[in-house]
């Protein structure tokens, strides 16, 4: 019990004093996971929309790959990315292993199937005739897709939350491809693991609380946008 109280006390002090080290870790977390989420949206929404709207040979197979990707363990993705970026690996010449760039790559691979899968489901749950109705109103192909995504905006925001939630809380891949290097690749989750293994529970608790606050604030914002558009 004393551990917990001490931890909470120190966490409070760290947050109050806006501890530089802690804030650096937090901002790197946001930078890496934010970028990864953004890239995942750019890749996942078009793919999910395509899968949701088009019929083609092999669609089920591609959809099953996306669905599998939604549940892929981050450590496996971390391992694969590490091998690719390893000095002697296929992408070794990039020299980005143990950098934030490597972490972003790994997190994109974790998040984009989630975004694609949720987008596909969001588009498919719309009345198939809605597409014809939008075409009948005079929409070109591009305008039709835009309006379909606008119709699916509530579940699409869920896709963003799922993608961001997965990468901000992920630890295995970040540890493997980032290396948890102080001031360079240490993010909140890897720092919590590191402090925990050193027995430095108070810092671990402080970081945990900060992580929860960030996740809460981001989702609060997205929920606000989502529910506001519901009432439109």
């Amino acid at each position, binding site marked *: 019990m004393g551990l917990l109280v001490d931890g909470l006390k120190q966490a409070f002090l760290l947050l109050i004093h806006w501890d530089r080290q802690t804030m650096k870790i937090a901002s790197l977390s946001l930078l890496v996971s934010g970028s990864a989420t953004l890239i995942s949206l750019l890749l996942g929404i078009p793919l999910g929309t395509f899968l949701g709207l088009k019929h083609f040979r092999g669609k089920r197979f591609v959809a099953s790959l996306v669905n599998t990707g939604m549940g892929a363990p981050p450590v496996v993705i971390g391992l694969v990315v590490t091998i690719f970026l390893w000095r002697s690996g296929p992408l070794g010449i990039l020299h980005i292993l143990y950098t934030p760039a490597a972490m972003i790559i790994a997190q994109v691979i974790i998040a984009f199937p989630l975004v694609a899968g949720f987008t596909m489901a969001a588009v498919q749950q719309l009345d198939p005739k809605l597409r014809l109705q939008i075409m*009948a109103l*005079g929409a070109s192909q591009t305008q039709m897709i835009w309006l379909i995504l606008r119709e699916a905006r509530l579940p699409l925001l869920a896709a963003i939350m799922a993608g961001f939630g997965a990468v901000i809380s992920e630890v295995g891949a970040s540890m493997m491809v980032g290396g948890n290097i102080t001031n360079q690749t240490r993010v909140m989750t890897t720092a919590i693991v590191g402090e925990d293994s050193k027995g430095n529970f108070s810092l671990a608790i402080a970081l945990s609380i900060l992580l929860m606050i960030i996740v809460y604030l981001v989702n609060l914002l997205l929920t606000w946008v989502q529910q506001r558009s519901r009432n439109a």
Partner: protein
Amino acid sequence: MTNRSVVTTNVSASNLTNVYGGRTVLDIPSLEVKSGEVMAVIGPNGSGKTTLLFDLALLTTPATGTISYSNVPVKTGYQALQVRRRTATVFQEPLLLAASVYENVMQGLKLRHVADNEAKQRTLKWLDRFGVSALVKRAPRTLSGGEAKRVSLARAFALEPEVLFLDEPFTALDSPTRQTLLEDFDSVLRETKITTVIVTHDRNEALVIAQRVAVLINGKLHQLGTPQQVFNYPVDEEVAEFVEAGNILPGTVMVQDRGLALIKTDKKEIEAVSNLPAGTGVIVCLRYEDVTLMLPGQSSGITSARNRFIGKVVKTFPLGAQVRVTVDAGFPVVSLITLRSWEEMGLAAGSEVVVTFKASSIHLIQHK
């Protein structure tokens, strides 16, 4: 107010086929919707009505064939989009977007690059015309079925289309809502003179609205004519069955005498006005309301009705103000009589009645 002259556009299809899963679901060698006419497409479920409508509206691509607007064949891609922007389609469901009623009606106008001021004017005008201008700010999910349908009709008319397509627009509505909306819709159609194709399975709808009726069965066009022609003189058994031409009996012409044919059916002989020669196989069509019932005691005296049979009531079935009476007169015959006649005659299963009908009220279909 916009007061543009009516642009006349006809729509035609030639060699049109649609194939689903290897099965041909639509096969129309040729069909023309004349400019300014209202054509109803009727037929049983799964007969290809909606497929035909979507092909004509350039919303789906047929397996083969050409769709022409104003006698110009429409190519796919950008040209199809340009032509589609001269049409409007109303679906069975209102299919409103998740935006306000006002924005819903504005959406199509925006997509067609109609100037903002005119778009606003048209939106308000047509919402008002369909009696839903009070709902402009409402979200579609808060509307009743009838209100949503009115908004979807306003949305279509605001586009001021040259051709209007409707896919069973009134089906999902309750009866009173449907009746008032049908009246509003009919008066708007008469005003605007837009070339219109309406898919329906309700023959009253077709009778009220359409100048011509196309009967589609199993993907094939069986008959195309005025509502009177189609409903009174179906060209074949399938059409007769679908339009409920009434009593249907197979038979053969035995004697032909100066335009009066004596037809032998399974058990009885029936006289009908027809020039078909003896030996012709026919289907006898007799509308329920053309069959008169009398009690045996009252039926003395000569009538002009050529056909007269004694029978027994098998069952009676009230249908609002009318009663459907099935009689066994050696062959099954159904008569539709008023509720009052039914009460006065005291008809019930087992009652003896005299069945009469005129030779001229029979429509004969030559049997293939």
